[in-house]
């Protein structure tokens, strides 16, 4: 295995005054926050609030109109950050390559960057799949997997990079509650065992309050509040309260 992949320490992330508009429509309007190395930081907000766009900026898939992103106190721009830091991302859809088998998907980074022999890559793939609780599925295609398995394979694929910063985009979306708990436990376990910094974007309240060290609430492209789960629960901000306490009431829906 490439020796450059062996150091496994989380890195800090700072987002400063991030602005982004698409076709004149503002999506991010001055986002600022700081994430400590090794922290699980959750960005929570309603659909369309700019959470996924924020993640794309952090990973370098989008460039900001204004503002900057700092990894370990160094400004990074675009995909250039990958030459210095190992950043893994788990997409909402999993984004597994459908034409490749599970094993080829998980080992893709190693194969394409020619890190290790085919036997070593197969061994690493099996090990990473085992970490996320999957065994002997290397020869299956993504279309043969359930939604939860696809998510776990996507996590295994990101783990192969041995990320210093791990980004999760809606990791429990479209999963049943039991599988959502499995994924949440995986995120916690990986953070504890691998000590990488984790940024999770989600609007799943159970997940957010279950795993977060700190939570940021983002609404209409602005961070409303940042704090620990307890601080967020006791926030006096009515928008925050309405978001974290929203519930379906059968009585209220009956006309």
């Amino acid at each position, binding site marked *: 295995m490439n020796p450059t992949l062996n150091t496994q320490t989380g890195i800090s992330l700072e987002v400063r005054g991030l602005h982004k508009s698409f076709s004149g429509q503002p999506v991010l309007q001055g986002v600022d926050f700081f994430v400590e190395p090794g922290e699980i930081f959750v960005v929570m907000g309603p659909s369309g609030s700019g959470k996924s766009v924020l993640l*794309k900026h952090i*990973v*370098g*898939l989008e460039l900001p109109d204004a503002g900057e992103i700092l990894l370990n106190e160094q400004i990074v721009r675009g*995909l250039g950050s*990958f*030459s210095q830091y190992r*950043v*893994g*991302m788990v*997409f*909402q*859809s999993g*984004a*597994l*390559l*459908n*034409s490749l088998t599970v094993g080829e998907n998980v080992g*893709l*980074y190693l194969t*394409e*960057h*020619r890190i290790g022999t085919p036997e070593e890559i197969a061994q690493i793939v099996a090990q990473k799949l085992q970490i996320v609780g999957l065994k002997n599925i290397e020869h299956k295609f993504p279309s043969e997997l359930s939604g939860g398995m696809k998510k776990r394979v996507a996590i295994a*694929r990101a783990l192969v*990079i041995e990320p210093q910063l791990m980004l999760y985009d809606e990791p429990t979306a479209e999963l049943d509650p039991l599988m959502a708990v499995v994924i949440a436990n995986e995120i916690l376990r990986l953070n504890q065992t691998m000590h990488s910094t984790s940024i999770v974007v989600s609007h799943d309240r159970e997940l957010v309050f279950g795993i977060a060290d700190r939570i940021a609430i983002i609404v209409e492209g602005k961070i409303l509040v940042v704090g620990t789960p307890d601080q967020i629960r006791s926030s006096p901000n009515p928008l925050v309260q309405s978001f974290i306490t929203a519930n379906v009431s059968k009585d209220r829906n009956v006309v």
Partner: protein
Amino acid sequence: MFHNIGEMMVLFWRTLCAWPQAWNQRRKILDQMFEIGNASLLMACVLSLFLGGVIALQSGPVLRERGLVSLLGGLVGLSIAKELAPVMISVLIAGRIGSAMAAEIGSMTVYQEVDALRTMNINPTHYLVLPRLIGIVVMLPMLVVLSILAGWFGGALVATNNTGIALSFDAYFNNLRQVVNVKDVVSGLCKSFAFAAMIGVVSCHQGLKTQGGPRGIGRSVTKAVVNSIVLILILDYFLTRFLMVFEQ
């Protein structure tokens, strides 16, 4: 339109710069070559067989009326080698392979697979575009060579079997050998080489800029095929004009 042309030229340049990566991508290149050849060989040969046949059928009786039927082999041979096989097979490949490239890369773009490649520091130009471009640039001229042979044979079949033409197999091929030079075939191959690069770039470019869901993929496929066919015909004129300089 100019923005698109600019983007395609940048993509083409980046793919050319990625040439040293070709050895690393050899498995994918061979897969693409097999895919293109396997999918199109029979259809290309059948198309050219009938193309040669129909030229012979249309022009044979007219030439016989004027006592010029012995020139039929050269007429069919030149038309097929210099113009019809390169253009028609390229149009066929644009429809069959260009559409598949745009659909596959388009679907990967829409479902964030291309973004996933980028986050793994895998350049989509190296991983997706380079193997497809090399595959089509190698295979299309090969298909054109086989199509030229099929077209010549198709013309010969009609010339010998149609009573309105009644030209012997030997007379047909003797005239063809006298009229058609190696440089005529090479001229057709040069065209097909350029058309192949153009189809590959247009289709991969459309795939990579796909937006939206399945409808977006459909739009990209349509644009890839239509733009490729239009550009084949435009490029054909300019290439013919350019190659004429070397024939004089």
